[in-house]
């Protein structure tokens, strides 16, 4: 807060009559800084009776002037135009703070006049604003410090996660090689290449072979998931989805037949060739996981239908799909047991299996759908699931076919 001061010394007449007007608070002192005159307002501001002020040392009744004797002498000698001290805090007996500002001017021959102003009202307003401002600044500082800590923690966690992924890759890779040998040799023995087997021996070898295969599948999926998590899609070439689906359907044809599941892939005479930019192997794997699940869980007598089309209407997803883009849809629908609503939001979590699947379903790793989602995300696409218990499940893989980074489309 700054007081506007006139360039000339305080304009009073020799009698100082106008200073005695109500509201003007002043003290007059001689060159020895002894108070010689005081206005009633000045005494009131200082909280002392007028009579007790006369004859006292200016610096003893006005503490902020203590230590400024050299400057007061300079004002008195008119080598310093004035001395100003703003917003002096004065605490009363009740602990309330009043604020005064003072200006010391040269007066008459060798005297000083101290003009006191009560600036409590403005100062309190300023104090409130300043308080809020400072509290916000402190809060900002705390947030910034917490951000810094979180960033450091995040970096640390990322490093730990990376180390964990690397370790998992090494472990799974090193486990897979000996498992290949175990299942391979078990298979050879089952084929009786080393001589005929008794029924007990066959039963034991079949168990070794089956469990070994299961473990190999699990390790393969773990490796696939880690690979998808760890790397951005490296190659993006046009992937012919029609061809990809035909291959997938062909490769699962026998499995469906053995399971008693009717496998449908309706062919359309006017079928449009649909391509997306991406990695054919990764997409192939995603489709294979969906088909494998659909056949496994549908059971004998059920149907699995695979369709490929360009989306004309988009499902309502959160966040929504870009309605201006072109979306290819791979649809895998089954007539299996369906998925409960409570489980729908968790089916893409790694290792998640529904209670029903864990208790009564076929063996599984709980990684297939996590891989599907990761693979589709790598292609900037989304997976949408529609399911109702007892009626089946439909998975829609929505893939952008006109992505900005499309290659050769």
């Amino acid at each position, binding site marked *: 807060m700054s007081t506007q001061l006139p360039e000339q010394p305080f304009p009073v007449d020799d009698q100082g009559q106008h200073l005695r007007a109500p509201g003007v608070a002043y003290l007059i002192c001689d060159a020895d800084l002894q108070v010689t005159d005081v206005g009633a307002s000045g005494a009131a501001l200082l909280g002392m009776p007028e009579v007790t002020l006369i004859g006292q040392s200016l610096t003893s009744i006005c503490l902020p002037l*203590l*230590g400024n004797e050299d400057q007061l002498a300079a004002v008195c000698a008119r080598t310093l135009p004035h001395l*100003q001290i703003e917003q*002096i*805090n004065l*605490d009363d007996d009740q602990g309330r703070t009043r604020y005064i500002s003072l200006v010391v001017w040269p007066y008459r021959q060798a005297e000083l006049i101290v003009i006191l102003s009560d600036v409590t009202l403005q100062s309190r307003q300023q104090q409130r604003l*300043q308080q809020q401002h*400072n509290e916000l600044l*402190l809060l900002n500082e705390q947030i910034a410090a917490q951000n810094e800590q979180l960033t450091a923690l995040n970096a640390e966690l990322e490093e730990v996660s990376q180390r964990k992924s690397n370790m998992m890759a090494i472990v799974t890779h090193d486990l897979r090689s000996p498992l290949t040998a175990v299942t391979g040799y078990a298979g050879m023995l089952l084929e009786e290449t080393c001589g005929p087997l008794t029924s007990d021996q066959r039963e034991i070898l079949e168990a070794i072979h089956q469990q070994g295969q299961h473990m190999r599948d699990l390790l393969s999926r773990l490796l696939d998931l880690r690979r998808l998590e760890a790397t951005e899609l490296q190659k993006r070439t046009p992937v012919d989805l029609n061809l990809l689906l035909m291959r997938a359907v062909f490769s699962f044809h026998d499995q469906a037949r053995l399971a008693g599941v009717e496998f449908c892939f309706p062919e359309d005479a006017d079928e449009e060739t649909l391509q997306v930019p991406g990695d054919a192997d990764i997409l192939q794997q995603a489709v294979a996981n969906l088909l494998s699940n659909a056949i496994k869980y549908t059971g004998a007598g059920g149907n699995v239908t695979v369709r490929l089309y360009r989306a004309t209407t988009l499902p309502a997803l959160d966040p929504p799909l870009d309605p201006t883009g072109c979306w290819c849809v791979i649809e895998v629908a089954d007539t299996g047991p369906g998925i409960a609503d409570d489980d729908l939001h968790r089916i893409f979590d790694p290792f998640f299996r529904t209670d029903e699947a864990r208790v009564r379903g076929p063996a599984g790793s709980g990684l297939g759908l996590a891989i599907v989602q990761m693979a589709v995300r790598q292609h900037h696409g989304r997976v949408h699931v529609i399911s109702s218990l007892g009626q089946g499940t439909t998975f829609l893989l929505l893939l952008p076919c006109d992505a900005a980074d499309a290659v050769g489309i």
Partner: protein
Amino acid sequence: MLQRKVCLIGDFAVGKSSLFNRFVYNRFSETYQSTIGVRVQRKVVTVQGRDVALVLWDTEGGQDSSTVRESYLAGASGAVIVCDLTRNNTILHCEEYAHILRQKNANIPLIMAGNKLDLVSPEHTHVAVARRVAQLIQVPLTLSSAGSGEGVEALFQSLGEGLVGVHPTS
């Protein structure tokens, strides 16, 4: 009696008023209340049997030294540069405050108060930073806590000694 004007200077919310209140009135409040303007009070310390009246000026703090009202520093014989040991910036700003004070009076006795010691351990990085800054600006450092009172008397006693030339605070 020897009288000396002493300013408390530093960023906002570092505890200048708390040190002032602890030293002058031996009281402390957890509630932060920002200072507007200046609060002035007198307290006598005894240095080698001699009384020295410290006229303490508790000045308002800002975000950094650019907001210092230089009129408050006029005629100061010494100063306490206060920083908050929990806030690194307030420690780093001490160098600028020392610069401002020395521009007005090259030989002014200064002391640096690393305040809020009760909120950090003595091994905290900020304490090491405070020691480094104090060394850099050639000002003695006193670690203090207005909350617990630790180091407060020693802080002003040390400055009092500097004001009468007993202690090398300048």
